[in-house]
C-alpha cells in the first residue's frame, strides 16, 4: 500500500478539495463566457502578420480534473499562413487535438479551459481573439470561417439522418437566409459532386451506414467545406482509412484547398502524410511545440532529438534496417510535469545545460525554430535565455 501512495494516490479528502477548487475556477470561466451582449471591442485584436490566417500565441489549455490540473497545451505558439497547409505531428496525448479544439472552442467544458494566450483569427479587415469569444458569437465563426474534419467518419455522422439532411442542415444554418429548400438541396448536390461522389443524387438519399469509410469521409469533407471556410482543421482525416482511399482523400483535400483558397491545419501522426501535404510542420511533445519549420527543414534537417527519434522509429519502404530505433521511456505524467526539459528523461543526446529549466526557442533559420539546449551555444539570438 505504501507504494501505491507514492504513485499519485489521492485520499478522498484531497480529491474533494481538488474538485471544489476546480469548480470555483471553471465556474468563473464559464460565467465570463456565458455573458450576453459582449462588446466587440473585448475580443477584437490585431494580427501580428496580416498574411496569417490563424496565429496561436502562447496558448495554454488546461483540464481541471479530479486528480489535478492536466496541462494539455502549455505555451503553444505557431502560425497558419493564408493558403498554406500546416502539419501538426506528435504522439497521442501530446495536445495536437486540444490545440485545434481550442481554436474551435469545442473543448470538453467546463473541465477544459483556455487559461492564457491568444488565438487570433484573421477575418479579412479585422481579427478576433477566439479565446475571448462569447458563445453566441462563436456560432457565426464555426463553419463559416473555421471548420473541422474529424478523425472517425464512422462516428461523426449521425446514423439516423440521411446524408442529404445532414449536409442541408449546415447550409441552412449558416447560409440559409432567403434560400428555398430546393436551392439548398441543389447546393448540397453540388458539394457532393465537388468531393468526388459520382452518384450524388443517390447518396443524398442514403444513410451513413450505406456508405464505405472513404465515402463517409468525403461527406464529412463536403460538410466542412459547405460554407467555404478560411481555415480547415483536419484532425487525422485519413487515419481510419486504407492507403488507397487515403491517397484519394489527400488528393481531394489538396485540390479543394486551392479551389476555395483556404488554409489547412493538418493534424496527424503519420510522417509520410505530413511530408506529402504540408508546407510547414509543427512537432509537438507533451503539450509544447518542440520544433517548427518548413517541411523541407524538418525532414532534411531535423534538430530536436524527439523529431529525430520519431523519424528513425518509422520503418520506410525501400530502406532496410535490422532494428528499428525506439525512443526509450515514456511520456511524463501530464498532471505532474517536470520543471526541466520534458524530453530529458528519454533523450539520448543530453548536454550539460539540460539540467536547467525548460529550454526556450532557438532560431536556426528564418522559419526553423527548436526548443533544445543543444543549440544554445550555436545560435544565441533566438529567445531570451
Amino acid at each position, binding site marked *: 500500500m505504501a507504494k501505491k501512495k507514492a504513485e499519485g494516490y489521492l485520499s478522498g479528502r484531497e480529491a474533494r478539495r481538488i474538485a471544489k477548487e476546480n469548480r470555483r475556477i471553471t465556474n468563473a470561466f464559464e460565467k465570463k463566457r456565458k455573458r450576453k451582449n459582449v462588446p466587440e471591442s473585448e475580443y477584437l485584436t490585431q494580427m501580428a502578420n496580416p498574411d496569417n490566417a490563424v496565429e496561436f500565441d502562447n496558448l495554454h489549455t488546461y483540464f481541471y480534473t479530479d486528480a489535478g490540473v492536466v496541462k494539455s497545451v502549455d505555451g503553444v505558439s505557431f502560425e497558419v499562413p493564408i493558403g498554406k497547409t500546416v502539419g501538426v505531428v506528435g504522439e497521442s496525448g501530446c495536445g495536437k487535438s486540444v490545440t485545434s479544439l481550442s481554436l474551435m472552442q469545442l473543448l470538453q467544458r467546463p473541465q477544459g479551459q483556455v487559461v492564457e494566450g491568444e488565438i487570433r483569427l484573421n477575418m479579412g479587415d479585422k481579427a478576433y481573439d477566439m479565446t475571448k469569444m462569447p458563445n453566441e458569437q462563436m456560432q457565426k465563426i464555426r463553419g463559416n470561417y473555421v471548420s473541422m474534419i474529424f478523425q472517425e467518419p464512422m462516428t461523426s455522422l449521425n446514423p439516423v439522418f440521411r446524408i442529404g439532411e445532414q449536409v442541408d442542415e449546415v447550409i441552412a444554418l449558416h447560409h440559409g437566409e432567403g434560400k428555398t429548400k430546393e436551392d439548398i438541396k441543389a447546393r448540397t448536390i453540388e458539394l457532393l459532386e465537388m468531393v468526388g461522389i459520382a452518384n450524388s443524387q443517390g447518396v443524398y438519399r442514403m444513410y451513413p451506414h450505406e456508405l464505405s469509410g472513404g465515402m463517409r469521409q468525403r461527406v464529412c469533407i463536403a460538410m466542412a467545406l459547405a460554407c467555404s471556410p478560411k481555415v480547415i482543421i483536419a484532425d487525422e482525416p485519413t487515419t481510419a482509412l*486504407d*492507403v*488507397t482511399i487515403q491517397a484519394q482523400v489527400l488528393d481531394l483535400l489538396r485540390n479543394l484547398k486551392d479551389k476555395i483558397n483556404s488554409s489547412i491545419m493538418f493534424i496527424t501522426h*503519420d510522417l*509520410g*502524410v505530413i*511530408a*506529402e501535404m504540408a508546407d510547414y510542420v509543427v512537432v509537438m511533445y507533451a503539450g509544447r511545440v518542440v520544433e517548427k519549420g518548413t517541411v523541407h527543414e524538418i525532414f532534411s534537417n531535423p534538430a530536436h532529438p524527439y523529431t529525430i527519434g520519431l523519424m528513425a*522509429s*518509422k520503418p520506410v519502404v525501400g530502406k532496410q534496417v535490422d532494428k528499428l530505433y525506439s525512443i526509450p521511456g515514456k511520456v511524463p505524467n501530464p498532471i505532474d510535469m517536470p520543471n526541466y526539459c520534458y524530453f530529458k528523461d528519454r533523450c539520448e543526446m543530453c548536454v550539460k545545460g539540460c539540467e536547467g529549466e525548460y529550454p526556450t526557442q532557438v532560431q536556426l533559420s528564418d522559419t526553423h525554430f527548436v526548443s533544445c539546449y543543444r543549440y544554445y551555444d550555436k545560435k544565441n539570438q533566438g529567445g531570451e535565455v
Partner: protein
Amino acid sequence: MASKKVRTQGDFTPVEYDPQYILQVNHLKKYFPIKGGMVGKTVGHVKAVDGVTFNLKRGTTMGLVGESGCGKTTTGRTILRLAGEKTDGQVLFNGQEIYDMNPKEMRALRTKMQIIFQDPFSSLSPRLPVGEIIGEAVREHKLVSKAEYNDYIDKVMDNCGLQPFHKARYPHEFSGGQRQRICIARALALNPEFVVCDEPVSALDVSIQAQIINLLKDLQDQYNLTYLFISHDLSVVEHISDSVGVMYLGNLVEYGDTVDIFRNPLHPYTKALFSAIPVPDPNAKMNRIVLEGSIPSPANPPSGCKFHTRCPYATERCKVEAPCQREVEPGHYVVCHLFDK
C-alpha cells in the same frame, strides 16, 4: 445445426506434406451465409476468403496486406480454425489437416498456434489480473508443474518486457504499448510454433510501434517462431516480413519474397497499393496510381478477375475468365491474365 456446405466442385489438387513448411494453405475458402427472408433462408454468401494458396516456411514471417474488408483477418482466423468450419480447401499444419482433427487433438494443437489480436484495449479481460490473463491457459494445458508455475510466468513476462510486480495489476492500469506486451506474453506463454499477428501495432503510436516490432523480432530469433503478420501498414510489413501476400477481395493476388514484391510488384493492384504509400520525404517524386472507386462487395463480387472493375489494364477476357495463380519468377506468384505466356 451444421450450416449447409457450399462445395465448389473441389477443383484443386491436394498438396502433400513438405517438411520445410510449417503451414501449407491450399485453395482455402471461407464463405459466410447471408440469411434473409422470413424464415432465415440462406440467400447468398459473403465470399470472405475465396481460394487462398500459400506455404509458410518454419521460422519466417509472412506479411498479409490489403485493404480493409479484403479478408486478411478471416484468412488468419480460418487458418487457426477460429471461424467455424472452412468451406473448402486444405490447411496443413506440420502436415496435418487441422479441420480433420477431433476436439481432443485440436485442443492439444491450440498451444502450438496462437494469435495476437489487433486491439489491446478490448482483447484483455478487464476483470482478470495480468498474471491470470497470461497464466490461465498455461494451467489449463498443464504445461508446467504447479511448483514451477510462478517462475514460469515471471520468465515469460520478463521476456516480453513486463515486470513481475505487474502480475497483480489489471489491464486498465497499463498503456497501449504495455497492453500489447501482455497480449504477446499471453500468446507466447504456451510455447507456440506459429503465431498469427492480426494488426498488432496499428492501434499504437509510432514510437511504441517500433518497440513492439523489435520485441516481436527478438522473440522470433529466440524461439524460432513463425509469424503470419496481418497489417495494412505496408512499411511495417516490409520491415518485418520475409515473404508477403497481397489480398484483394478474398483472393491472394500476388505472393512472393518481400524483396521481390517490393522491388518488382507485378499485379496492377499491388502496384497501385504500393504507389499509394505516403513517403516521409517532401522531395520524393510521386508517380501515384490512384484507383477509382472502392472495393466491391464480397457478397456480390465481379465476374472473372475480381479486380477488373478498377484495373487500368482490364481487357474483355478479364471480365469473363478468372485468372489462376502463376509462378512468374521462382517463388513469385501472381494471379493475373497479363502474365499468361
